[in-house]
Each structure stands twice: as C-alpha cells, then as structure tokens.
C-alpha cells in the first residue's frame, strides 16, 4: 500500500514537472527535458496527447525560428554579391539538437514496438506536417508551384527532420508488416485539403514512390466511383503535380504501378470484381488526358504485354465503364485524344491496333471492329487538327520518329491493315513531308503484289503526296544493296496506272519523276543486257517506252539522251541476240523502234547517236554475227569474246561521252574457253529476220515524223551515209566524192582492201548501202566505199583473168560485183544504160567483167563525179537524176555495148532496148 502511494506520488511529480516545463519558453528547453517527456509517453498513456502536442509545438517553434530569419533577411536570395549569401540561414544548433533528439526518441519507440507506436507517430508527424505547411504557406507565401515549395522547404532542416520521422516510420511499418499496413495511413494523408501539403507527399513519394503513386491513383479511382463521374478536381491536379515531380526520378515506378493497376482489372471473374477495379481503366484513360506523365507511363513498353487476348478479357467490363463517360466524352473520344497526345510509346499502341485489325479470330471480332473504328476516328481527328491547327499534336513528332514500326503494316497483304497504315502515313505527311520519302522508297522496293501496290497508290494519290514521289524514287534508286528489278516492275505498273488512271486516283507526275532517273534506268538496262537478264531488260524497255513522250517534253541534257539511246540500241541488239521467244523479240524491236523514233524526232544529236550506235553494233562482234548468213561463216558457233576489262568501268568512263566516232566497245566479260559461252549461230531465217528488224530500226532513227510513218528526210539519210563512211573507212584521207585515175588506186589499195573486207564480211552493209541508194543522192557520200570495192574488184577480176577461170567459179567475187553494180544503179550513180550492168555481169567472163568495170564503171564515174548536185528535186518531192536528158556518152557505154554484142545471144532483147532505139534516135539526129 505504501509502495503504491509512493508510486502514485512519483507519477504526479513527473506530471507536474512536465506541465511546468510546458509553460517555459522554448528557447530555454534543455535536452534532458525532451527525453524526460518521453518517459511519460511510455508509462502514462493519458499524457500521450499532451506530450505529442508539446513536441509538435517545439517543432513549430523551430520552424518559425527559421522562417523568422528568412523574414529578417529576405534578400539573401536576391543579393548574390553580399556576404550574406555565404552565410546560409541557420537554426540555432541547440534547437536542431533537440529536434534531432525528439526524432531519435520517437524512432526508437517505433523500433521497439512498431505495432503500437508506428501509427501514432505517423499520425502525429503527418498532422504536424500538414499544420506546419498550411500555416506557413497561408501566412507567409502565396501559392507556389510544387518545385518551389520543395525548394523552400528543403532549406528548412527541421521540416526535413519531421519528414524523416514520417518516412522512417513508414519504412519500419512496411518492413515489419508489408505495404498493406501503410496503405490506410497514406490514404488518410491523401485526404489533404490544401495544396500546401503537396510537398510532403512529394517527399514521401521520393522515399516510397510505388506506394504513394499507387495510393494516389487508387484514391482518385475511389473518388470517381463515389461520384460516378470523372471530375477534374483540385485534388487531382495536386496528384498530377506530385506525379510530375516523381516522374523525374521514378518514372519506372509509375509505369509499373500503372501496369499493376491495369492488371487488377483483369481479374478472372468479373462478378467478383469490386467497383474500384472496374473503374481502373476509365480512370486511367481520363487521367491520361490530364497528365502527360501518366500518359507517358501508360504508353510504354508495358503495352507489349497487352495482347488482343488480354483486351478481350476486358470486354465484359465495357458496359460498366459507360457510366464514367458521357455524351461529350465517350470512351473512343478519350482514346483518340489520348492517342493524339501520345509520345514515344505510340509505336506499341499502333502495334496493338494493327495486331487487332489484322487478326481473324472470330472471338476478337468486336475488338477488331472497335480498333478499326478507333483508328478511323483517330485518323480523322489527326488529319483535321493537322490541316487546321498551327500547332502540331505531340503525336506527330512521336510518329515521325517511330514511323519505321508501321513499315511492316504498310507492306501487309491484308488490305484492312495496309490501308489505315497508309492513311496514317499520309496524315503525317501533311505536316512533315520529308518522312514520306523513305517509305515511298521502301514500298517501291518491297511491294510484291497488287495489294501492297494498291496501298502505295493510295498513299501517292492522297493530297499532294505525289509531289514527293520523285524524292522517294531517289531514295529507292540510291539503295545499292537491293535488287532493283522489283522497283522497276512497280514503276512500270505505276506508269500504266498513270496513263490510264482508275477512278479517284491521280498519279500524274510518275512519269516526270521517272524521267529524271533516266540515266539510272539506262544503266540498269545496260547491266541487264550484259548479264543477260532479259526479263528485267524488257521491263525497263517498257518503262522507257512509256516515258518516251515525257522525254521530249522535258529539257533533257544531251548526255542523258545519248545514254538512253545507247541503252536502247544495246537492248535492241541484245534482244535479237539472246531473246529466244520470237514474240518478245518482235515486241521489243517494235518498242525500241518507237522509242528511238520518238527520241530522235526532237533531237538530231540523239538521232545521229542512235545511228552511230547501230552501225557500231553492226560492224562489231558479236552483234555483227546476227547478220551473217550461215554460208558466209567460218564457225558454227559464236564465241563471246574474252574481255577482262570491267564492263561497268568502261561504261562509266564512256557514260556521257559526246565525241562522235568514239568507239563504243561492247564487251562481254565471259570466259572464252568455257563451252557454255559458245552459242549456236543464227540460221538463215533468223538472219533474215534480224536484217528486217535492223532495217526498220534504222529507219525509225532517221525518219523524222511524229506520226511514225518512217519517212526519212534527206538530211538524216545523208548523215547516215556519212556515218557509214566514217565507220567503214579506216582514215579520213580520200573520203571525198571524186574517183581518181585508175592508176591512183595503187596509192590507196591498202585502205581499199580494208574497206572491201569490211563490206564483204559484214553483208548487212550492202543492205545499208541499198537503203542509202534508195534515198538519192545519199549514196554519193559513200562514193569512197563504192570506189574501194570497185578498185578491189578490178584487181581481183584481173587476177582471175590471168588464170583464165570462169566468172561463175568465183561466186563471192561475182556476188560482190553484182551487189556493187546494183547498188550503184539504184543510187543512179550509173545512169542508163549502165544501170543494167548488174544484170549482165553474171553472164560475162572475168575478162569481160574486168573491161566493163574499168570502162563503164570506173572511167564513167571518174569523169562524171557522183555529186549530189546532179540530183534535182522532182515534182513528187524526191531527188532525181534526170538520165534521159543526160545520156551516157558513147565512149563509156561502148565497152558495154561491145560486150553485149559478144553475147548477143543472151542479151538480144535487152540490147535492143538499150542501144537500138538510142541509135536510131542518134541517127535521126
């Protein structure tokens, strides 16, 4: 009993001491008193409130000391020059010591028995924080942004000790009992009314980011569930500010929390789900509208875990979500808005949407249509805002950087996927047109079927996208690591579509763009010809012929024109040479005829070049072999020449070579010894075919008629004649019109032999000469060739004469003689009656032939120089040498006459026609 009494007195003394202390000013408080008070906390639960109030007052006092100092010298922030800046504000050390003591004491209590003390201490510290921050904020400062507030308080160490108490207690609770134990406490803290408390939460959030974020969001969700409506309250704003603050360091936590929350709404059984869990998704969507941080955290790589199946699980919740959205702001609208504001994560969203659109699973049908509708709305909205607003929605930037992710969908064979993807690309192109180029290029390269091409066409025909086709084409053609054949095929299709556009599609400009890549096309074509890839070559030729008309409209640089002519000629020859299918061959030849015709119609340079290339091909192996009859050949196979020099190299050197007469060597980089390169020779039938084709090709060059009627003008034929001379004659000497004395041939015999050899081994030259002869007086310009042949023939026949052989035994010689004579008479170089020489010669002996050639041909032309001036324009427009008036003087025709008389049995009627009437006439005169 006594003991009890003593104890009772003891307790009352302690209380009295404590109460008396509380009446003292705080400046005198000693550390011992602080620790003494804690005794009361433990033994006297009734005194708890008082002790805590005492501590709170002390903290309040400590903070106010600090703030008072701040008020006394408020200039320390502004006046950076004064020394006051060097002395940061200090709270007297003894106060700090006491405050630290209180913290230690409280934390020790918590450590001892957290179950009992942690909630109490936590409650106290948070209440005190709330009070302090509200008090000093209200009175001393106006509403500050969160960052300033944090900075302001971070200078106050006492406040930080308080936060420390709070955080350590939470940490202890979490460690001992798990997160659930703190949830309710945090929730209480989140119930704050004044935004001045924000900084405290931000501070707690710095220590327990996930927890605070989760509780903040849950708190918002609860509120939404209660009001059945999403309201953008001041509280939410405050939450958003805190989230923004936390996102600087704890963005990953935010992401995780958001995703965890989302997973909550994926509970197995929807009946059992709480109303809060159901509201998660609508809430998050609403929040994403308000907070860019949340938006970012939602659109992150976590989205990759959301598959269509997962979304399907959410489907039954949809009817319950409706109530959280109203008329003005439906679910889809919000999602569209969210997407418009999206950032980097947009690629995941796009992936998901396209995945949904692409899937065929009947289970996901609703989602699929949903995704489609959403995307339609989204596109419409995006387009609208891009076309009307000056500001660009954030998504555009993100889209531009993430465009590569939609490439896959652009090339999808599912039209439902490819079309929206295409439209998306087009929309972005409204603002950022540059981005279009690589995708046009990619599509050009990778489109392989009509669906993909359709997407491309749709993109191109959207808005002004066509303007960027050119750029895209550049991109596509620049790529070296891909085969261009697909590009060519796509361009070909596009060209066809341009010329014959389906309804609603305008591809005007494709050909113009293609024209600017003429050299590339030509180079590819040449490469294809060399490598024998006839398929691509045909394709390219098709493109060439399609853009031919545009070629004329555009001012083309000369080298380009020449280059394309070269390609065309090479292609023509290669076709004849390699193409097996007659149809293709014919088609290709006709196409090239037309192309060359179109090109050369405008440009005489092109024409000359074309003719030059053709002659070059004709005169050189292997293409010269095209025109050699089987019986004139030495081998029964064609060996493609072995040339080690790089084809490409030589072509690059010669690419824009303007020099006329420069030899264009067409080289084949093949191994001569390999039997694979021995191709069989052409039979007579194909040689004839080849000749026909060549002639028509040649004609298409020199005919200058838009209507493609192949009517040549004299100039062009003359230039052809000059070219022939240039190619066949080995030097520039003696290429003039006059025929010298026969003796003079001794001087020129080497070159004569050369010319003769060339003409006899390339019989196609006779054909060409024949053409020239037909267009009088073009043949005159070739008189050097005729002269050389004639000189050689005279020499040969002379040799034959000595051996007394028969002229029929010299088949080749006779043929050449006949060809020469026929050509000359056709060209009216040998007027009547000498024009019949060709008919007579085969029946003559070599001796007689020699005489005839000397007297009638050589001597006549020597004395009557075959000049173009002899030809006059007749009434039907052609040039004509009037031989009826200008008769051949007797001395020249006498040999002929005498020879005929010798063989009168054979040439009786011919002789009569030629000479008898003539004689009568002359006798009459």
């Amino acid at each position: 009993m006594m003991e009890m009494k003593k104890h009772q007195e003891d307790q009352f003394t302690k209380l009295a001491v404590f109460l008396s202390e509380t009446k003292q000013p705080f400046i005198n408080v000693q550390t011992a008193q602080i620790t003494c008070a804690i005794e009361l906390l433990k033994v006297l639960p009734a005194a708890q409130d008082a002790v805590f109030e005492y501590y709170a007052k002390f903290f309040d006092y400590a903070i106010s000391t600090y703030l008072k100092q701040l008020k006394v010298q408020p200039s320390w922030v502004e006046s950076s020059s004064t020394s006051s800046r060097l002395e940061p504000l200090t709270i007297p050390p003894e106060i700090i010591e006491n405050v630290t003591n209180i913290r230690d004491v409280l934390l020790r209590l918590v450590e001892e028995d957290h179950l009992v003390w942690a909630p109490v201490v936590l409650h106290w510290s948070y209440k005190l924080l709330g009070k302090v921050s509200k008090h000093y904020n209200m009175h001393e400062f106006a509403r500050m942004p969160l960052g300033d507030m944090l900075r302001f308080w971070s200078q106050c160490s006492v406040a930080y000790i308080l936060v420390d108490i709070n955080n350590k207690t939470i940490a202890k609770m979490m460690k001992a009992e798990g997160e659930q134990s703190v949830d309710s406490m945090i929730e209480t803290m989140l119930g704050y009314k004044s935004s001045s408390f924000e900084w405290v939460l931000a501070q707690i959030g710095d220590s327990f980011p996930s927890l605070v974020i989760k509780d903040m969001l849950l708190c918002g969700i609860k509120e939404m569930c209660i009001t059945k409506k999403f309201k953008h309250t001041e509280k939410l704003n405050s939450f958003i500010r805190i989230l923004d603050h936390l996102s600087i360091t704890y963005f990953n936590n935010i992401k995780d929390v958001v995703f965890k929350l989302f997973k909550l709404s994926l509970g197995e059984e929807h009946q059992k789900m709480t109303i809060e869990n159901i509201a998660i998704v609508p809430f998050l969507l609403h929040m994403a509208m308000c907070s860019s941080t949340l938006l970012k955290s939602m659109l992150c790589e976590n989205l990759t875990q959301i598959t269509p199946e997962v979304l399907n699980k959410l489907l039954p919740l949809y009817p319950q979500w409706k109530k959280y959205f109203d008329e003005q702001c439906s679910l889809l609208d919000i999602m569209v808005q969210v997407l418009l504001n999206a950032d980097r994560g947009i690629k995941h969203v796009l992936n998901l949407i396209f995945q949904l659109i692409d899937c065929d699973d009947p289970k996901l049908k609703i989602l699929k249509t949903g995704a489609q509708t959403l995307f339609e709305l989204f596109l419409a909205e995006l387009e609208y805002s891009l076309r009307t607003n000056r500001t660009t929605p954030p998504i555009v930037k993100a889209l531009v950087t993430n465009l590569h992710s939609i490439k896959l969908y652009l090339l999808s064979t599912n039209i439902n996927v490819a079309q929206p993807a295409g439209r998306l690309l087009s929309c972005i192109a409204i603002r950022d047109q540059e981005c279009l180029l690589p995708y046009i290029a990619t599509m050009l390269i990778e489109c392989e079927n009509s669906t993909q091409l359709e997407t491309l066409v749709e993109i191109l025909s959207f808005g002004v996208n066509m303007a960027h086709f050119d750029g895209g084409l550049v991109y596509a053609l620049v790529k070296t690591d891909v085969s261009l054949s697909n590009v060519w095929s796509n361009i070909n299709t596009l060209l066809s579509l341009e010329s014959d556009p389906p309804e609603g599609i305008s591809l005007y400009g494709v050909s113009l763009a293609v024209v600017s890549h003429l050299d590339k096309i030509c180079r590819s074509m040449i490469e294809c010809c060399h490598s024998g890839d006839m398929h691509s070559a045909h394709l390219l030729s098709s493109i060439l012929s399609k853009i031919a008309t545009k070629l004329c409209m555009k001012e083309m640089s000369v080298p380009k024109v020449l280059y394309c002519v070269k390609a065309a000629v090479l292609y023509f020859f290669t076709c004849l040479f390699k193409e097996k299918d007659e149809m293709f061959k014919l088609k290709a030849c006709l196409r090239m005829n037309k192309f060359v015709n179109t090109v050369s119609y405008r440009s005489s340079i092109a024409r000359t070049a074309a003719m030059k290339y053709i002659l070059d091909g004709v005169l050189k192996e292997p293409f010269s072999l095209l025109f050699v009859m089987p019986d004139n050949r030495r081998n029964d196979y064609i060996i493609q020449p072995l040339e080690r020099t790089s084809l490409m190299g030589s072509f690059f050197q010669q690419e824009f070579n303007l020099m006329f007469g420069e030899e264009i060597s067409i080289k084949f980089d093949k191994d001569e010894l390999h039997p694979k390169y021995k191709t069989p020779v052409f039979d007579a039938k194909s040689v004839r075919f080849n000749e026909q084709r060549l002639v028509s090709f040649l004609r298409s060059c020199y005919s200058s008629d838009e209507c493609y009627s192949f009517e040549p003008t004299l100039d062009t034929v003359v230039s052809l004649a000059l070219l022939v001379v240039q190619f066949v004659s080995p030097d520039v000497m003696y290429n003039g019109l006059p025929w010298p004395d026969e003796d003079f041939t001794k001087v020129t015999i080497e070159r004569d032999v050369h010319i003769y050899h060339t003409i006899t081994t390339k019989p196609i030259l006779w054909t060409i000469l024949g053409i020239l002869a037909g267009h009088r007086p073009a043949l005159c310009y070739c008189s050097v060739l005729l002269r050389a042949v004639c000189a050689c023939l005279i020499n040969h026949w002379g040799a034959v004469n000595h051996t007394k052989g028969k002229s029929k035994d010299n088949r080749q010689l006779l043929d050449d003689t006949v060809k020469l004579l026929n050509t000359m008479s056709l060209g009216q170089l040998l007027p009547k009656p000498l024009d019949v020489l060709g008919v007579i010669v085969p029946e003559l002996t070599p001796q007689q032939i020699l005489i005839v050639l000397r007297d009638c041909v050589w001597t006549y032309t020597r004395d009557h120089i075959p000049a173009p001036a002899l030809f006059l324009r007749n009434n039907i427009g052609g040039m004509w040498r009037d031989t009826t008036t200008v008769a051949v003087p007797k001395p020249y025709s006498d040999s002929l006459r005498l020879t005929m008389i010798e063989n009168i049995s054979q040439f009786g009627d011919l002789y009569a026609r030629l000479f008898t009437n003539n004689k009568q006439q002359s006798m009459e005169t």
Partner: protein
Amino acid sequence: MDYNEVKVNLRKFGFPLSTVNALNQIQTIINGETSRKQHLNEDLAMDLISEFIFCETNEEGKSTKPMSRIRYLELLVMICEYFNKTKIKPDNDNCCGDTALNAIFMTLFPQFGAPPQRTNMLVSLVSLAISTYSNLILQSAGVQMQQLGCSSKYSSQLADGLVKKFFTFISSNSSSLHLLPQNAPLFTANLMTSLSELYFNTKTPDTNMIIKEPPRVVLETVVQWINSDPCLCFTAHYTDLQRALPSGAIPMAATLPFLGLFRWCFFAPLCVKNNNDLELYSELHCALIESVMQGWKVYSEQNPRVSRPYTLSVHSVVPQQLKDLIEETIKLNDPVTMHAVEIVVERLTQSIHAAIISDTIFGNKQDLVNQLESLPENDVLKTLIKRIQV
C-alpha cells in the same frame, strides 16, 4: 449565493484556480446544502462544469474551441488530485468508493447532457487513474458503469476508449493492471463485462457484421484478472450499490461477464488463426469454468445470505451467429476446421455442464435440450443431454 454571483466570483480567477474553486463549489452544491431545490442545484453544477472545468462554453454559454492537450492534461491531473485528496471514509471497502465523490463523478460525466468530447475526457481520466492508482475515481467509474448498464453506450464507449488509448500502449505485465482487481474490483468486473460485449459480437451496429477479435493485451489481461481471483466475476452481483449511491437512487441489477467471455471462447476456434491467441482462449475457458465452479462456492460459504447469481442463460448460451458460423464452417468440410467445430461444441458442453453443477444456469430444461440438439453431434454433448434429461 446567487447563481450568477457564484459564476462571477469564479470568473475572477485564472485557469488553475478557477477550476479548483469550481470543483469545491460543485462539491458543496451537490453534497452540502439541501435547502435549494435539487434540480436547480444540478443545473448550476452542470453550468459550472462546462464553463470552469471542461471549458466547453464561455460566459455566454456558447461553445468554445477545444482546449490544448497540455491544458487538458493539467485538468486531468487536477481532477485526479482532487479525488485523491478528499478524505476517505473509514468504512470504505475499496469497492464502491465514496458516496459523495460518486455523486460528483456522476455529475462530471453524466450519461446524457454532456458534449461528446467529454467521453474522451472520461477515457483519459480513467486511463490516468489506472496508471496513478487513483482508486476513488475508478470506484466511482465502476459504480457509474453498473448504474448505466455494462453494455450501454456509455460503458462500451469507455471500454473501447480504454482499449484504444490505454491497453494498446501498456504491456500486460504492468503492475497497475495487475493491481486493478484489488484496487477497484467493481470497476474491473464491470470493465470485463463491457469488454466482453465489444468483441465476437455481431450485435454491435458499427462493426458491420464483421466479427472483431480483442487485442492480445486485453485478452491476456482478462485471463490474468480471472485467474488472480475466482470471485472477481461475481463482484457486481454481491456488491451492495445502495451504499455507494446518493440517497434516493435505485441500484441497478448486476450483469456478469460470464456470458460474454464464454462467447469469446466459443467463437475463437472458428475465427482466430493465431495459435498463441488460441492457447490464451483455452486458458480463458479454463479460468471461466474454474470461476463458475469455485468462485461462487467460496463466496457463498462466507456470505450465505446473498442470493444465487446466474452465470448462463439457456436462451442466450447458443447465439444464432454461432450456429450460422458452425454451419458455414461445416460446409467447408476441411479436417482442420472440423476439429475446430468439435472444440467449440465441447467447450459449450463443458460450460453448460459447469453451470449446471454450480446450479447457476437460468432457464427451462427442455429449451436447453432443444438448443443443444441443434448442434452438431458429439459424444460429450450426448452425455450432457442425457444427464439433463434424467
């Protein structure tokens, strides 16, 4: 003295003195002069209490801001000291306290007519009194609780407040708790009754059909109290309240903690998961049975004139909630829980058996049999039923 005169005089003093004076004044008003009309006296006392003691109203009778916690503590200390300093009558049996002080206590903390914060004050005061062995306050509180009923709102608020603000902060081996049955047996017994009503009870409206467990410290303390004195639970029954009450007051019938505490033991195996706690419950059950069997016997041998109390009532011994809970548990068909059900039935049987032996059960035999037969089958139960029917 005129009313206003009293007030004006008191207003002349500052805080500590005004309260002391007011307390003395109240004492004289309530216990001293009987010349004035009783109800007028009470009115004056009430006014003085709210203005000068608890400072709930100002001069004009309007409510003021709540006082600071430190002043609150000061006030509590003052009241405590006031009660302790008052002369204690020599015939005090440390059970009912002083009649005059009881009257003051009842005026200070009435059942009706006081603002709600005074309930907190009461809790704090009792808490302080327990810590400081201020027995007279505790005795007064015990009397007040019994007068108002141990399951009344007043009592349960007090009990609940004490659990939250006192028991949780104090360890169960604290000496002030140990000595409580000695210092204030009536208060202890009544507090137990109130506490027993707080837990494992779905009748309380605010718990929202969730069965609440008592904190471990409360459970430990209760077990300790019962073990320390088998008669403790009967205290309310044999205490003569009339002596403790002001003249003219009618003592209320006592409620014993048995029924409530037995209910804890019945519910615990089905609800409690913690093994340590479960052991405590079986300890509690033993202590209760011991108390039923022995406690009354011991006391009645010394005081044969006192009537026999009832420890259990046939009608409430098997509450409906327990039956529902047993049914639910059986549905789970889990061997562990089935075992728990068996324990419950056995405990029930033992408790009733003990009550029957000590002849402190109230009710009809047939009703009891009917009640018991609705329980799941059990050998011990069968024997009991047979015994009752014989």
